[in-house]
Each structure stands twice: as C-alpha cells, then as structure tokens.
C-alpha cells in the first residue's frame, strides 16, 4: 500500500553514502539518476517475475505517463498497470512488485538523504487497554492511513524497541498476540464482538510488517536484498488446499475454456467437406453460378468419458479437488459416466446429475456409495475387475477412460492385466496422479505397472497441471511435452 508521504521515485538520486554498519552489506548500487531509469528498473523486476514487458509496453507506459500528472499515486499506478500488466494474474503480480519496488525506492532515498522520523518511544503513558480497543476499531473500519498510524503506535507500545527477534514475521505475530487481535471465525454465527474480519486483519499485519521493515532499514542504514515473490503470494488462489469455492471457480473457468477449444486449434481445415445442398442454394443468389462454396461444419469430437476417482484416505486432500473436477466435467460433457472407488467401485453418475450442490454430492458419496467394503483400503486390482464386469460392453474406441488416483494398492495384487484389457477396449486411457512424480513407485505405489497401458500419465494436484491435461484431452495436442514419461 501507500508508503508514507512521497510516492513517485525521487528525481535527484545522489550517490550513496558510505554504507554504515550494514547487516545486509549496505545499499545496493543505485542506477543513473532520473525518472526513466527508475521505470526501466521496475520493468526489469517485473520481467524477472515473469511478466512479458516488451519495449512496446514500456513506450506505452511512458506515453501514458506524459498524459497524466504522475504525482497522484493512484493514477500513476493505474497507468502503469494498464500498460504493463495484461491479464488478471499479471495485474496481481504487478501490484506486489510495484509496492515492493517503490517501498524500497523511497526507503533508499530516505537513507541516502539521512532522513529519519521521530518515533514515539514511550509505553508507560499509554493505557494499553484503551490502545487495544482503538486499534481493534481502526482495524475493523479505519481507512488505510488510520490503520498505518495504529500499526506504528502498536510497534511503539509492544515492539520492544531495538530488541525485536530480528525476524519480522515473528515480531508481527508477537505484536498481534499482544494486541489480542483475532480473526472472526468463519460461519454463520453472529459476529464475534472481539474478532475482526480476516481480510482486515491481514491488511493490518501487512502494515505492521511494512513499518517494522521501515524501522529496521532506518536503524541499519541498509536495504535488505529484494526477494523474489513467494509462489503463494503471486498465484491466484487455485491450489488444492484453498477453499472449495476457489477450486470450483477455477474449474468453472476451465470448463469454459474447454468449450471453446477445438475451434481455436482447428483453424481453417484443409480437408473441409463441401456441402452440396447449401452450395446450390447459395448459387441462386448468383444466377445459378456456384461462386461460393459452402462447407459442412465439422463437429468437434465429443468424447465419451469414463472417470474413475479414488476417494480413499490416502488421497483425501486430493479427492476434494478431484471430485470438484468431476463435478465440473459433468457440466460440460453429456456423455460422462463417473465412478468412485476405494475397495470396490460404484457408479455415481446419477448422483452428479441429480445433485447440484457440491456439498450434497460429497455427502451422498460418503454415505451411500458403498465403496468401502471391509478394511477401507484401496484395492486397485479388484476395482479393475469390477469395472470390467460392469462396463466392458460399453467401452469402444471412442471412449476415454480417466483414472484419478495414487496407484497405492496397499500391497494387494495390482491386476495390471485387467487394466490392460480396459485400456485395450477404450480409445484412450489417462491417469492423473495427485502425488508428486518423485514419490511414484515408492512404497506400495504401483503406477509403473499401469503406465505402459496409459496414453498419458500426469502428475495433477493443481489447477495448472489440470489445465495441461485438459488441453491434451480436448485437443490431442500437448500430450507429448506434458506427459514427459519418467
């Protein structure tokens, strides 16, 4: 967020003074003075975080800034964002890099010019209870500036000047505990009088962190090295550990992409088939001369899908993800039959077609799918035999079988021959494994036994990996680079 006071980088950067007792090795070398080099540095950092910032984007950014008074921080930021960040994900990364970059630029300037701030040092004149209450109030509905002020007060009161742990993250949490701030519990209950909304609390923690960093920089007269963004920060919520709604949103987006696929890949096919009837009709316009050929539309391939999903405890974290994938697939494929299995297999196509809400589906599957028999351990071998028994006559070369599971058989017979028969009858067979490739074939994982019979085996526990797979499924392109068999 806004770093205090000045916003745009200063124009007159001086040579850095000799760095003092610096724990990070003083200030990094500063580039040539002026505004343009600063912007180039920012672009460079953005590139390092994976944004495609080309020369044309940079030129646009400069043109845009010419049109604005760039002393207004919001305008400045928006203009840069509109010209440099060209998707929602990019925009998110941009925000993070922008904050970090200008925070550092301002701090560097302050250190170079020897500016320090008067910090409120005392603690005993403050009524701590009163302070806690005021901070809580500010966190709940204060503006950005108020929150920042309160963060500084909190550091002054609870920060133990000069004897912090040295690790900012630890200090932030210590101060938060000292303030007795806690997030509201999610759910429907009436608001907890002591709790504050989660997102506001995070915002406050960010202010705390920033102010602590600022104090540290001022004390040590040096800037810590710029760290690359953490994967967690930059990614849009999409990992399997995120809440269900987030997973679902991404899968829904995926579904739409799936629906428009094929067209974008097909382009103008050379082997188009002339539609005689429509060509003749069209020729009436031109006096019976067939000036324009009409082509028959090519129907996109609509695969018949058989999805088998492991719902045993060894894949608990992944099965929520998988079930929501299954849920989304049901919306976009008409010919889809889904099965869940642990020790034995059970068809749940009806459940998905009947129920709309995901919670109801998982409940139905958990209670009456009848997948666990005695032990509750996965038995892949038995599952193949049962699957063969149930659907073998329905499988034909147009059908695609997808298995979602970790191939951990708990030491039981894998019956790879049965799996081979399935894959032989089906047109294509894919396996999605929620474990990192590193763990495959260790312990009781027997994916090696099944792999030769699959058209592709994918490591899949994030939506990104899922997307790779979906591309392969719908377009046929991309299997080779993505599968990369071990």
């Amino acid at each position, binding site marked *: 967020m806004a770093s205090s006071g000045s916003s745009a980088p200063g124009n007159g950067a001086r040579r850095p003074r000799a760095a003092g007792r610096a724990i990070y090795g003083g200030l990094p070398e500063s580039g040539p003075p002026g505004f343009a080099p600063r912007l180039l540095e920012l672009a460079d950092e953005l590139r390092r975080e994976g944004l495609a910032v*080309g020369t044309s984007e940079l030129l646009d950014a400069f043109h845009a800034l010419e049109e*604005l008074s760039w002393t207004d921080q919001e305008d400045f930021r928006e203009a840069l964002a*509109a010209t440099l960040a060209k*998707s929602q994900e990019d*925009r998110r990364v941009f925000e993070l890099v922008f904050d970090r970059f200008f925070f550092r630029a301002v701090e560097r300037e302050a250190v170079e010019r020897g500016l320090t701030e008067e910090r409120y040092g005392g603690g005993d004149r403050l009524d701590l209870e009163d302070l806690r209450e005021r901070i809580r109030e500010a966190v709940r509905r204060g503006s950005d500036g108020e929150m920042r002020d309160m963060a500084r007060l909190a550091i002054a009161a609870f920060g133990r000047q000069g004897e912090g742990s040295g690790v900012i993250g630890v200090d932030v949490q210590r101060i938060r505990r000292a303030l007795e701030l806690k997030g509201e519990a999610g759910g429907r209950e009436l608001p907890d009088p002591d709790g504050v909304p989660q997102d506001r609390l995070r915002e406050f923690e960010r202010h705390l962190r920033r102010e602590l960093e600022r104090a540290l920089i001022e004390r040590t007269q040096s800037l810590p090295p710029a760290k690359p963004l953490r994967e967690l920060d930059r990614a849009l919520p999409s990992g399997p550990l995120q809440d269900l709604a987030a997973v679902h949103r991404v899968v829904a987006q995926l579904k*739409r992409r799936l629906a428009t696929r094929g067209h974008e890949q097909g*382009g103008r096919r050379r082997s188009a088939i002339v539609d005689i009837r429509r060509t003749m009709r069209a020729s009436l316009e031109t006096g019976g001369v067939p000036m324009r050929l009409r082509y028959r539309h090519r129907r996109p391939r609509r695969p018949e899908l058989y999805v088998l999903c492991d719902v045993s405890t060894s894949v608990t974290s992944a099965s929520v993800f998988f079930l929501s994938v299954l849920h989304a697939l049901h919306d976009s494929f008409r010919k889809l039959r889904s099965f869940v299995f642990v020790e034995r297999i059970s068809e749940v196509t009806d459940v998905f077609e009947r129920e709309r809400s995901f919670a109801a589906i998982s409940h139905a599957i958990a209670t009456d799918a009848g997948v666990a028999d005695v032990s509750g351990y996965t038995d892949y071998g038995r599952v193949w035999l049962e699957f063969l028994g149930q659907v073998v006559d329905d499988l034909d070369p147009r059908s695609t079988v997808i298995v979602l599971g970790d191939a951990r058989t708990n030491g039981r017979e894998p019956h790879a021959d049965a799996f081979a028969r399935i894959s032989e009858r089906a047109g294509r067979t894919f396996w999605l494994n929620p474990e990192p490739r590193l763990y495959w074939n260790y312990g009781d994982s027997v994916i090696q036994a099944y792999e030769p019979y699959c058209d592709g085996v994918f490591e899949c526990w994030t939506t990104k990996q899922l997307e790779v797979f979906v591309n392969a499924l719908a377009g046929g392109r991309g299997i080779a680079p993505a599968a990369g068999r071990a």
Partner: protein
Amino acid sequence: MRDGLEAVGYLAGESAALVSFLAARLGKPVLVEGPAGVGKTELAKALSRATERKLIRLQCYEGLDEAKALYEWNYRKQLLRIQAEAAGAGWEAVQEDIFGPEFLLSRPLLQAIEDSDPVVLLIDEIDKTDQEFEAMLLEVLSDFQISIPELGVVEAQSRPLVLLTSNNTRELTEALKRRCLYLWLDYPDVERELEIVRLHAPELSETVARKLVEVIHMVRGLDLKKPPSIAESIDWARALLMLGADDIDASVFERTMSIIVKHRTDLDVVAERVGVKLSDGVLGKLGTG
C-alpha cells in the same frame, strides 16, 4: 473523463475512468476483461455518449470471418455490372471497374475507420472468435488501416476509440494484448453499486436500495451458475418500484427472485440460503427495515 461518463449515466471506477482517458489520449485500443455483467459493453456505450461519437459494434461469435467483419465484395452488383457491359469492354476495363469502392460492402471494422468523424468501435466478446480472427485484427488495431488486395490500403480518416471486451473464456494472444491497454472490471463494492442502483432507479428509497444491494452481494457470494450482474440489480430495483414494495422481505424476495437468478438449480440454492436469512431479519439490521 469520469464526470463525462457520469453525466451519461455510467459511474466509472477509478481505473475505468483513467484507462478510458488514456485510450482517448494515446489512441490505443483497450482490452476490457471481467465477469459477465459488470458493464464492459455499457462502458463502450457510455463512452460513445460522453464523447458524442457514433458507436459501431462488432459482435463476435464462433466462425466470424473477414467477410462479416471487414468488407465483402458485392457479388450481385458486380455480376450485374459485368452483364450490363458484357459486349465490347475488355477484361482489363471491367476488372478496373468492378473492384472499385462502389462494389464494396463495408462491414463494421471498415466502417469504423472509413468514417470521417471519429467513432467508438466496440469489438464485443473477442474471446468467442478464433485466433486467426485475432491475427486479422492486428492490422486494424495498431495501424488503423485495412489492406484490400484489389483496392489497396484503406487508411483511417480519424482515429476510432476502440474497446475490446472479453469474458476471459480463453487466453488471448500476446500479440493482441501487446497492442492494447488493459482494464480489468470487477463487480463494484456495495457503496458503488448502491450509487449505480440509485442513479438508475432514483425513486427507490435509500434503505430498500441498500438492502437490495446487500442481498445481491450475498447472492454473488454463493456458488452459482450465473451470478447476478449489475444490469440485473437495476432491473430488480425497477421491478420493486413497479410493485410498490417498500421493503424486501421473504415473500417479496420469493416473488421477484427470478429477476436476478436465471437458472433453475440456482433458484433453489438462493431460495434456500437467502430466503432464510431474510425471514430471520439478519439482513435488515443495517437498514431500518
């Protein structure tokens, strides 16, 4: 720019106003992305009203080709011409003749750059077309010109203000993005949406409007097939006015719910979750109810 947009009934957010301003000043196209129903298309319409320019709209769909988007030769007219001249005239002369501007049917893109007054060009739902079409757009978007093999290059008489909208159903090509300014529109927060609703249905009382917007936000929070858009909140507000409802209680909600929720399965979810809260009176606590 923001005031201009507001004057024609569009409350633009900070970034929307700024990016529109930049687009007008720099003459660059804008790529607008966001969920359905946040006012992407409306932004283009408002811009055309605010700048008093003509709006030319190209609605994209699967299979849209240059004959529908750029230009097409008027075969029938050409044929008539050939027949009329059949005797005597040499091939050269006829060819000169029939590939003239006279026989060109201009489609939206050509219209937009041919027009002597600057226009607002809206290319709606660009993500519905295929990549080939995007590639074809590049010439228009960066140089504002169209090459017609038989005729030569048609250059823009004036710079149109171009908006491309996308619902983000597929990734657009880098080349296209490179030529555009980027604007992400999201659902507005409660306060802004309240302003929007009040602007379009000024007779609705403040408390009812606020409650309405709160309900809308709650409905958007549910996992629905199609969350309600801003247009639908406005529709709902107008419907409430027409019914003369002075409060949103469970029964009013029940009757008018179909205005904001358009899927049968969604209806069930919303009725279950929101209906209950309304009858509990949980929502009323912010308004006077």
